[in-house]
């Protein structure tokens, strides 16, 4: 047997402070009421740092700092110069990418292989991409402003953006929010998730290192209450949220009746559809990548596998064989494929829904794997014999759990794929080009991956239909969320 010896990435590249304040107006400050919470390493339950918890007064302070920076510095600044700051940030991220990747894996639990090879390159690329837009906004193709009536009006920033991001891709979601906002001329107050604040705080240091004017980027840490205070603040012109559909609904209600522009990137229950003429080895890779990438903590995860009945057995057999190769364990080991579940709460939810799946009669299977004793872990799992009526086929599990269903015809596949309130992504595996295009036309999802899955790029718009949210992030489309167009 070829046993891979441990190959741990060194922790020493990153220095974690014992406590972090709020990043407001260019400096780290203590919260008004002194509340704190702890961020832990989900792979070991070790406390990584104490984090300030922002109360309403802190949020107000941050919003005011952002407003002032918008009015006095960032709004008036030529796009050419905003671009240079963003390019500078992109460069620093590249220079410090190993440090950021290790910190991300420590705080989030994702394998270093992913934070190093996926998250960090995409973060830097995102800042590079939007940096280039900062001085080209009139060319972004938004045409005339609807109420202006005269042509050639430059699109204007909205002002001050409140941004709330999730824990699954902490730094990447920060990049998706901050880069287009700043490029368009807005200033931001961003709240990272309470379980993964550390890379956002290191990003704050990068803003300092880049000499970004104070107040352009503010980071307030905290949990749901902090987020609520932020999105409900009267001084906010724009709210951008990525997270659960449940919270998205609450935010949509909270901004009702205001002039705040809102974009939401929410949950999903994507169908990954495998036809009998699929390139089967690549399809199996796509299935695995679709649901086990980032422990399945992915809103666009291919969590419903639809296999054409004529190839059900061989595809399932290949999938199981492939799953047996997945290495679950220490996120910092360079050979780890599946890291730790981000939090005890998330682990509970995954366990609960998995138990529901078994109780509802679906057949559960996981490859043999030994899970570490400390920390939050869940073995890669598939459920077969699942029907559309099962809860595990309808609800977002947000973990390494795949529901396997079957279909007979392309029309049935489309019908099943669309039979969900979500509409974020979908996958199609077939060698037949016309079928791909036929399917892609009919799938109600914002991103359709054909013969691939879970691919992301700063130039490519991302976002959902229906209850998966509205607005797009990435590409020219992503600017729209931050411009008065």
């Amino acid at each position, binding site marked *: 047997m070829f046993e891979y010896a441990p190959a741990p990435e060194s922790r020493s590249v990153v220095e974690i402070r014992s406590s972090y304040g709020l990043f407001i107006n260019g400096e780290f400050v203590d919260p008004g009421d002194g509340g704190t919470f702890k961020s832990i390493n989900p792979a070991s339950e070790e406390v990584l740092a104490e984090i300030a918890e922002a109360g309403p007064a802190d949020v107000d302070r941050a919003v005011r700092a952002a407003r002032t920076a918008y009015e006095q510095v960032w709004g008036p600044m030529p796009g050419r110069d905003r671009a240079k700051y963003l390019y500078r940030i992109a460069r620093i991220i590249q220079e410090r990418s190993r440090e950021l990747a290790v910190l991300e894996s420590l705080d989030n639990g994702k394998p270093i292989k992913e934070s190093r090879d996926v998250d960090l390159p995409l973060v830097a690329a995102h800042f590079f991409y939007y940096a280039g837009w900062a001085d080209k906004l009139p060319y972004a193709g938004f045409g005339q402003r609807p109420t202006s009536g005269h042509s050639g009006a430059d699109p204007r920033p909205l002002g001050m953006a409140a941004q709330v991001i999730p824990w699954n891709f902490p730094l990447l979601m920060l990049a998706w929010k901050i880069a287009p906002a700043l490029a368009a001329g807005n200033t931001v107050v961003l709240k990272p998730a309470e379980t993964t604040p550390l890379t956002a705080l290191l990003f704050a240091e990068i803003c300092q290192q880049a000499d970004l004017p104070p107040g352009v980027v503010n980071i307030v840490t905290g949990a749901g209450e902090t987020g609520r205070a932020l999105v409900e603040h009267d001084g906010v012109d724009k709210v951008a949220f990525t997270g659960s559909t449940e919270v998205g609904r609450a935010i949509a209600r909270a901004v009702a009746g205001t002039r705040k522009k809102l974009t939401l990137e929410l949950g999903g229950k994507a169908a990954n559809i495998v036809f009998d003429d699929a390139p089967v080895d690549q399809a199996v890779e796509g299935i695995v990548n679709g649901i086990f990438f980032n422990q399945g903590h992915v809103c666009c995860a291919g969590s419903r596998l639809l296999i054409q009945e004529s190839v059900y057995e061989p595809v399932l057999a290949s999938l199981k064989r492939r799953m047996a190769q997945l290495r679950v364990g220490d996120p910092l080991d360079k050979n780890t494929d599946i890291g730790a579940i981000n939090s005890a709460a998330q682990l509970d939810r995954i366990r609960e829904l998995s138990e529901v799946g078994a109780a509802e009669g679906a057949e559960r299977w996981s490859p043999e794997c030994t899970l570490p004793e400390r920390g939050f872990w869940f073995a890669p799992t598939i459920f077969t014999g699942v029907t559309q009526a099962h809860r595990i086929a309808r609800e977002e599990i947000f973990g390494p759990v795949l529901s396997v269903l079957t279909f007979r015809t392309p029309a049935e596949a489309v019908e099943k794929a669309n039979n969900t309130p979500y509409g974020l992504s979908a996958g199609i595996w077939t060698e037949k080009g016309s079928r791909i295009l036929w399917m892609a036309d009919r799938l109600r999802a914002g991103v359709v991956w054909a013969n*691939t899955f879970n691919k992301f790029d700063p130039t490519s718009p991302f976002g959902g239909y229906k209850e998966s949210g509205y607005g797009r992030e990435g590409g020219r489309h992503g600017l729209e969320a931050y411009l008065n167009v």
Partner: protein
Amino acid sequence: MSERVAVRKTYKLFIGGKFPRSESGRSYLVEQTNVALASRKDARDAVVAARAAVKGWSGATAYNRGQILYRVAEMLEGRRDQFTALGVPADEVDAAIDRWVWYAGWSDKLAQVYGGANPVAGPYFNLSAPEPTGVVAVVAPADSALLGLVSVVAPAIVSGNTVVVLAAEERPLAAITLAEVLATSDLPGGVVNLLTGRAAEVAPWLASHADVNALDLTGVTDADLAKSLEEAAAGTLKRVLRPPAGPVDWTADPGTGRMTALLETKTVWHPKGS
């Protein structure tokens, strides 16, 4: 010889290409005319008709949709007198006709202007294209009975959405007459469904209806109602067009915002390999 007795028109709802009375049997009086007073069940039926029309209308070619919208302009041109007789100013009728023509031309250009290739950093074909969001519920503006109505309906349907539009409560006659134009314009039944009645009564049912994808509140002037409708829409995360912040000049260039607000962007990836 006695003077000829005129035949009066019954103003009914327009649902699924037919002109039914309100299922409630109710009507209300506008300018000495009885107008159907739509109920929540009429709204429900209108959503069913609109949903049923989505597949055919969104699946029609853009060229076909453009021709049909242009046909609406042709039909409207031929019925100018009906609208002026209802008190719609002649220049508003002109503008309404021109607006149909303007939007008709957008049908096969939207995807080119708002979609396109994305140069991703990898061996992938990557294309974004706009698609209709589905069923759109609209509260039409009251300040412009014909042009305002056309200005909210045409941008919604040109891309393939279907609509349930609630005509301005106090100015429904031009709206119903427009429905008669639509009914003779090759527009498939159910693409536009028009209700007359009270926004405060009907709009909440549309705002909370789980089979409605977007909500256009342009005609809602009561801020509290607008807020509660937006809150209801949040239940299924509908796309919401809020009421305008101030008076709207309906004769001005409308821009593309009303169309794009009711579009989804779909991005398709495929590897490039031999």
